[in-house]
């Protein structure tokens, strides 16, 4: 009796919660297009290995299922869960430090059935926490609110830095800063923080690991050690540059097919794409990315409450930063760091967490202002 009535109550609750909502079709189509493109590029970059394509397809499948689930959870529910989620992120980061695995740095957590990087979760968890933090406060934020926000950023960032994974830490910090920026932090504060960051660079340099310094050196003079650390950048630029207007054709990129390119199906997948599809292909891809970012910002701007606005905006900006950092790395504008190309690179954690983020965005869209 009681069980039955309780079950009935849960069902009613679930039906209310997961009420059919309007999907943002353009955004969904763009995401599907990127996923499809990813499978094609992984087929080529992975040396025509069907296994890899199936695995990647399975991840996208999981990602889109999660997207469908997440979009049915109203923003208010997300907001209530946020502190717990944030706490979970911190907990997992601590777990990584204690029992993580990975070569050179501990980034991975092995749960037996899957391995994943908790730092990826933070890219979502931190903006959510900051949005939650600012949601009930007056914006633009007061100094005390700002201080709390910075502490909220520093906690996960510090845990990621000691893994050590400077690249992800920077991205996580970035995603937090976007929330603060979108919350309307005054330009004076922005200028002040910028100056402080600039001044702290030399101090940061002292605390960098040798391999991180190596990456900076290599970025400054990639030709100094063409067979060593500069190899990746040089080979990547050669792959991109040799693509020309229209590329060498799908699966005909010599740089990738002949294995000159390192990490060709993961972090350097854009070089493979550029080589095979040329500048026209790159321009089309960037157009899709720009559309996704713009659409996400538009959804955020139309959100119902402050939490949704800030979270949506942060998701859009973080997504863009992924694209920018990866493209800049591929073309030799930035040092090599382990940032995948969103939704294209082979790999599960990034794709799934991104699709979860877009699920939340869909939810925000479904609960937009009337």
């Amino acid at each position, binding site marked *: 009796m009681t069980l039955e009535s309780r079950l009935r109550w849960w069902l009613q609750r679930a039906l209310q919660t997961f009420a059919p909502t309007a999907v943002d079709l353009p955004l969904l189509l763009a995401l599907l297009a990127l996923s499809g493109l990813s499978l094609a590029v992984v087929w080529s970059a992975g040396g025509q290995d069907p296994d890899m394509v199936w695995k990647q397809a399975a991840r996208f499948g999981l990602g889109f299922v999660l997207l469908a689930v997440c979009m049915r959870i109203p923003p208010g529910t997300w907001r209530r869960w946020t502190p717990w989620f944030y706490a979970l992120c911190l907990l997992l980061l601590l777990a990584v430090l204690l029992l993580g695995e990975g070569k050179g740095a501990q980034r991975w957590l092995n749960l037996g059935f899957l391995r994943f990087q908790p730092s990826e979760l933070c890219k979502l968890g931190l903006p959510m926490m900051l949005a939650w933090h600012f949601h*009930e*406060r*007056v*914006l*633009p934020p*007061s100094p*005390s609110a700002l201080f709390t926000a910075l502490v909220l950023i520093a906690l996960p960032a510090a845990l990621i830095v000691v893994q050590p994974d400077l690249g992800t830490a920077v991205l996580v910090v970035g995603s937090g800063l*976007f929330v603060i*920026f*979108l*919350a*309307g932090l005054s330009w004076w504060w922005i200028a002040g923080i910028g100056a402080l960051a600039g001044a702290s660079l030399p101090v940061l340099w002292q605390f960098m690991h040798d391999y991180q310094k190596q990456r900076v050196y290599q970025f400054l003079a990639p030709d100094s050690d063409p067979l060593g650390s500069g190899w990746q950048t040089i*080979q990547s*630029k*050669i*792959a*991109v*540059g*040799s*693509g*020309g*207007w229209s590329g060498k054709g799908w699966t005909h990129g*010599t*740089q990738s097919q*002949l*294995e*000159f390119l390192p990490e060709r199906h993961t972090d350097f997948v854009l070089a493979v794409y*550029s080589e095979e599809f*040329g*500048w026209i292909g*790159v*321009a089309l891809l*960037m157009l899709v*990315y*720009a559309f996704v*970012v*713009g659409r996400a*910002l538009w959804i*955020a*701007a139309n959100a119902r*409450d*402050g939490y949704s*606005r*800030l979270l949506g*905006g942060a998701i*859009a*900006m973080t997504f*863009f930063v992924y694209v*920018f950092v990866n*493209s*800049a790395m591929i*073309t030799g*504008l930035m040092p090599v760091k382990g940032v995948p190309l969103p939704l294209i690179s082979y790999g599960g954690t990034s794709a799934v967490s991104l699709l979860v983020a877009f699920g939340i965005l869909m939810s925000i869209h479904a609960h937009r202002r009337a």
Partner: protein
Amino acid sequence: MAGLRKRTPIKDQQAESALFLRRALLSLALILLVFGVLLGRFFELMVLRHDEYAARSERNRVKLQPLPPARGLILDRHGEILADNRLAYRLEVVPERTADLAATLDELAQVIAFDADERSRFLELVAARRRFQSLPLKLRLSEAEVARFALERYRFPGVDVVPYLTRHYPQGELFAHVVGYVGRIDPADLGGLDARRYAGTTHVGKTGIERTYEDALHGEVGYEKVETNAEGRVLRVLERTPPRAGEAVYLAIDAGLQRATAAAMAGQTGAAVAIDPASGEILAFVSLPSYDANLFVSGISRRDYQALLEAPGRPLFNRALQGGYEPGSTLKPFMALAGLELGVRSVDYTIVSTGEFRIPGQDIGFRDWRRGGHGRVDLVESLAQSVNSYYYQLALDLGIDRMHGYLSRFGFGAPTGVDLAGEAAGILPSREWKRARFNQPWYPGETVIAGIGQGYNVATLLQLASATAAIAAGGRRFRPRLAHALRASFDVPPRPLPPELLDPRLVRDPAHLALVQRGLVAVMHSPTGTARAVAAGAAYRIAGKTGTAQRVSRRRDTDAPQTLREGQRNQALFIGYAPAEAPTIAIAVVVEQGGSGSQAAAPVARRILDAWLGAGESGEGSADEGGRQEDRSGTGDRGLGRIDSALRQPETIEGPGEMSGAAEHPANAPQPPVPSPAPAPTELPAPGPAPPMQTQAPRERMP
């Protein structure tokens, strides 16, 4: 916060939304700007700098792989193979593809045995080359090793058996001093080689014909444009320019004659050179003992090399090319020609040999080999009996300057320019030479002994053979040469190398040459001839001259001269040509520690000539002639005893001060019972018809 109470009322959704929109639009503008910058960067790389990167991509992908040409064959004049290329297998390792190089080598050693030498050489290579290059560990795997490795191959990633062509010398020791050998290119070679042409070539000619004709034998390198991956593994061939094999080198040498010559030496230490007088082409070129050139191709082990260096008779020493010998009496025919040609002697000039010769006004005595002398002799007889006095006087009459001038035209004292590297020059003494060498003036006594090819004189076997060939060819001297023709491929006929005439007219008056030639025939066929026994029974007539001397390069002998029996200290020499009327072959032979020229060298020469001209036993004519000549000259020296050098000692004069170098020039030395460089007999007469030569051997020697 002061407004904690009225937080909600103060929070202005409209204003916040507007603020967000402003920030979002600003962000979007920045984002689009950054996208623009990114696209610009892509445009720069992909369009503006496309050519540069396309070229670099192509260079990445396409590698020019050299295809080493097959080395040209070396053959004898009839096409018998002296050097060819054989398919062999070598073990190669790509260090980068082995998980642990040291462990792999240890494990590999259990499948294919290689010694510490090969291991250390390989590790040197590893240190010097790129890690992804395939490097040879062991050459010339046996079939069993190839098969064994095929079974175990799966255990050794990065290790492979690779076929290649290796140089092979099927004749073994027989041609080692002629053909030479190839060896791995070492840093010393690299300076002189065109790196482009030798890309992919591992071996280069180190000695002999292999070295002289390296350029022709090597051929032209080919190239293969291959697509490789980042590991350097070849995926496919895009374009191929085949290599052009090296030219075949046909030697003038007749392999049959070479074999006969080596056989004629019968295991003795020495050398023999046979030349075609009509062209200067070398028909046989033997230096014994020899070595197996195949040892050097794959890199000789340090132990084997040491063994060769220390082997008795020094097999690596090319006696025919580099050995310096005192020519002794073999110089007399050339002296005789000098006398006639320079007008110092007439055709019918005679002298009386008394057994001892003195320079007017001096006390120094120079002897004939026969006690009491040879009586009155003319030029022919002076050659037949090897009368020293004739040449003592002749040398004095000519003077050292004119001797040097005329004899140098026959090639003495300078390398002949044969197509082998490392030829010795020999010594044809002159005033200038002595001043340059010792800073001493020339003394008349030195002229006298130089007249019989002793003193400072040093000749190489090649010089003697070449000069003899000039007499045989009527005064035309050609540059001696081993190569006969080059052949680019077997589709085209061989391209003969034209003979190089060095001196078309060494003798002005044919009568002069005829007289000397008659003298040389008399040596072999007259009853007084020193080598008459050797010519007995020949089907053809031989012209020749014997000589006995001491080896000049004594210093390197392990045995001190004193410890040897006298006969062992001698170098037996013979020069000659045949048939005397129309010579087709001129030869020079030296047998080290071989006793006298007529005893040791002349019989060798006879066997060589028999091999070339056909043995035949109908030596009737020569036997008859021999009998006649015996009568005519009335040799009564049958009972001639040994010159007891000890008895002669008081008469022996060391000569002027400069003669104190007697140890260097033993020919000048007195014949003391004790003093070390005891001179050796230079000549043996052949007294009487077919005498047992051993018992007869009288010693000819100056005091």
